């Protein structure tokens, strides 16, 4: 048996171990801590890429913990009782997003987070959050889903609010924590309802049993509520701008990955677990929430004066695009599958694109705050004179976010426009309008922060090369995915979307046999 079967568990275990060992390393020497951090990060990214290659070429990979063989999913009575990780193309795709944002955040943080301001502990929490997120994406049973959900809750809120010497970040953290805990408890309640009915926690087994009865629908409602709270969809979005605006830039981009992990959970529930009992009504509900999220978030972005909060509302609006695409897919799952599939592909592709361009923008906002000492658009100005690279990256991210060709945001948004048009032209009009508004907002922000005469701002510090390197990683993805969207769609996005769309039987067969 080759070591490659153990890749799924190593993907989670290594950052988890890395997180708890990091403070010990720091006790020995600061250099050793950084070395350990980079080593753990590089190993995790390598594991994720290996896992993705295996899954994209070899199909669903199952790893059963505590069994004599990794694929011995069923107990002696032919019942899946053990804890297991089930990695299909969608999980692998999401893990790649986590690798991209986690890797960029790690590189950026090396130059951004200051010594003596909680660097060791914030880096530990970062690794913990990373591990929790990866676990959420790879797990195959409901209870571990909840456990990883809560790991990300504690780590994320710790990261938002660890700067106890400031007054604003604990406030943002408190708000976020209340929403996250509430979301987690709703998920746990749903887990209880499902367990009480079917006596199992395995997602594949539950999926084979769910018929769509009253209790099933209550559980689905609870799951949707809990996961949407964590994904930051309107009307449960209040925490997101505060958290993104107040957290360090490297934390904020991992929080974006975290909201996408919650969205992944939602997709997994509605497509895989409830795939046998899905109704268009759920699709319409998700579509409506998506449209609402886009609209409210973009309108809120217009009136922001703080660069971080402005980008945060941009991030929330992109969650709306993904929900819209998934909703269109769900609503047309049974009746008109040919464009529902395009919609879902667009939504899945947009997750990666959003991760890259929102991540880039948030890192730029962090760099602006570092260089100018403030993120207030009313006092910023003229940064392009000194920070050429940062302004270039910001412009790139803003254009990609607004969906300007040939950048990556255009490729996925076009797919969403095309397919949602077939469901209802109003949705498309809304989405296009939102994109135009978003462009206007970001052009204004760019003009306000970077153009204009040079200003002397107090408290500015130079931007370190590590920060630029972190931004460059994401910028490369933004350009590369925009230039060859066909290749990306064919080799990564289509398998991932199909894993949700038609892959339910494969997923079930991988776990339950037959």
């Amino acid at each position, binding site marked *: 048996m080759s070591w490659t079967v153990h890749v799924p568990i190593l993907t989670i275990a290594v950052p988890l171990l890395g997180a708890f060992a990091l403070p010990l390393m720091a006790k020995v020497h600061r250099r050793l801590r950084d070395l350990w951090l980079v080593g753990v990060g590089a190993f995790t990214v390598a594991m994720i890429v290996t896992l993705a290659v295996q899954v994209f070429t070899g199909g669903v990979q199952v790893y059963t913990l505590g069994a004599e063989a990794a694929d011995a999913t069923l107990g002696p009575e032919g019942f899946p009782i053990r804890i297991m990780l089930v990695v299909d193309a969608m999980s692998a795709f999401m893990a790649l997003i986590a690798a991209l944002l986690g890797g960029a955040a790690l590189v950026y943080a090396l130059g951004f987070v200051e010594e003596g301001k909680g660097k060791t502990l914030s880096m530990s929490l970062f690794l913990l959050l990373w591990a929790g997120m990866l676990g959420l994406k790879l797990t195959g049973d409901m*209870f571990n889903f*909840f*456990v990883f959900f*809560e790991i990300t*809750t*504690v780590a994320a*809120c*710790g990261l938002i*609010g660890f700067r*106890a010497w400031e*007054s*604003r970040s*604990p*406030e*943002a*953290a*408190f*708000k976020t*924590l*209340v929403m996250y*805990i*509430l979301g*987690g*408890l709703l998920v*746990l*309640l749903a*887990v*209880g309802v499902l*367990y*009480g009915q079917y*006596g199992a*926690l395995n997602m594949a087994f539950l999926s084979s049993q769910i018929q769509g009865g009253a209790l099933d629908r209550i559980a689905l409602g609870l799951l949707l509520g809990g996961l949407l709270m964590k994904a930051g969809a309107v009307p449960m979005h209040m925490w997101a*701008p*505060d958290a993104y*605006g*107040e957290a360090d830039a490297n934390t904020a981009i991992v929080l974006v990955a975290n909201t996408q992990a919650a969205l992944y959970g939602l997709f997994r529930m509605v497509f895989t677990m409830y795939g046998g009992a899905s109704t268009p009504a759920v699709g319409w509900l998700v579509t409506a929430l998506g449209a609402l999220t886009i609209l409210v978030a973009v309108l*809120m972005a217009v*009136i*922001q004066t703080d660069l971080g*909060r402005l980008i945060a509302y941009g991030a929330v609006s992109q969650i709306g695009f993904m929900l819209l695409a998934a909703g269109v897919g769900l609503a047309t799952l049974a009746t008109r599958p040919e464009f529902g599939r395009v919609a879902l592909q667009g939504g899945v592709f947009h997750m990666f694109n959003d991760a890259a361009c929102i991540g880039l923008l948030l890192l730029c906002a962090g760099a602006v705050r570092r260089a100018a000492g403030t993120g207030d658009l009313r006092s910023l100005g003229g940064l392009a004179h000194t920070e050429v690279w940062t302004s270039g990256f910001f412009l790139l991210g803003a254009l990609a976010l607004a969906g300007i060709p040939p950048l990556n945001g255009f490729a996925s948004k076009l797919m969403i426009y095309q397919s949602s048009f077939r469901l209802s032209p109003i949705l498309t009009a809304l989405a296009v309008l939102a994109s135009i508004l978003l462009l206007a907002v970001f052009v204004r922000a760019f003009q306000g922060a970077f153009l204009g005469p040079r200003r002397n701002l107090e408290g500015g510090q130079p931007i370190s090369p590590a920060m630029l390197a972190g931004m460059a990683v994401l910028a490369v993805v933004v350009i590369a995915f925009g230039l060859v969207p066909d290749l990306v769609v064919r080799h990564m996005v289509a398998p991932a979307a199909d894993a949700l769309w038609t892959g339910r039987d494969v997923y079930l067969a991988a776990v339950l046999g037959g």
Partner: protein
Amino acid sequence: MIGNLPFVVSMVLVVLGLWTLMTRRNLIKLAVGIVLIENGVNLFLVSLGYVRGGIAPIYTFAPADAPMVMPTPQALTLTSIVIGMATTALLLTFAVVIHRHRGTLDAGKIRELRG
């Protein structure tokens, strides 16, 4: 009917907690609301696992035909209690830090972050 009482009580706890979250503005009371919901959910999980006349699933000492209790819900509840302790501790920590900065726990008065 009496057998459903634990479920009713657990849902009452959840609703009370939600009501607390929606109507109270004191940060400590918000934390209490969260804990109420948490305990409601935990009670729900424990009552799911109850089997009348069931015995602990230890094969060595069990009579041959006794109904055994599936230990999963208890394990879930224990995990959930531990997680709940961690999140509550974090919540209260933030409340203490906010109180140090602002001298108040009223959520209406400490809103620096709006819009």
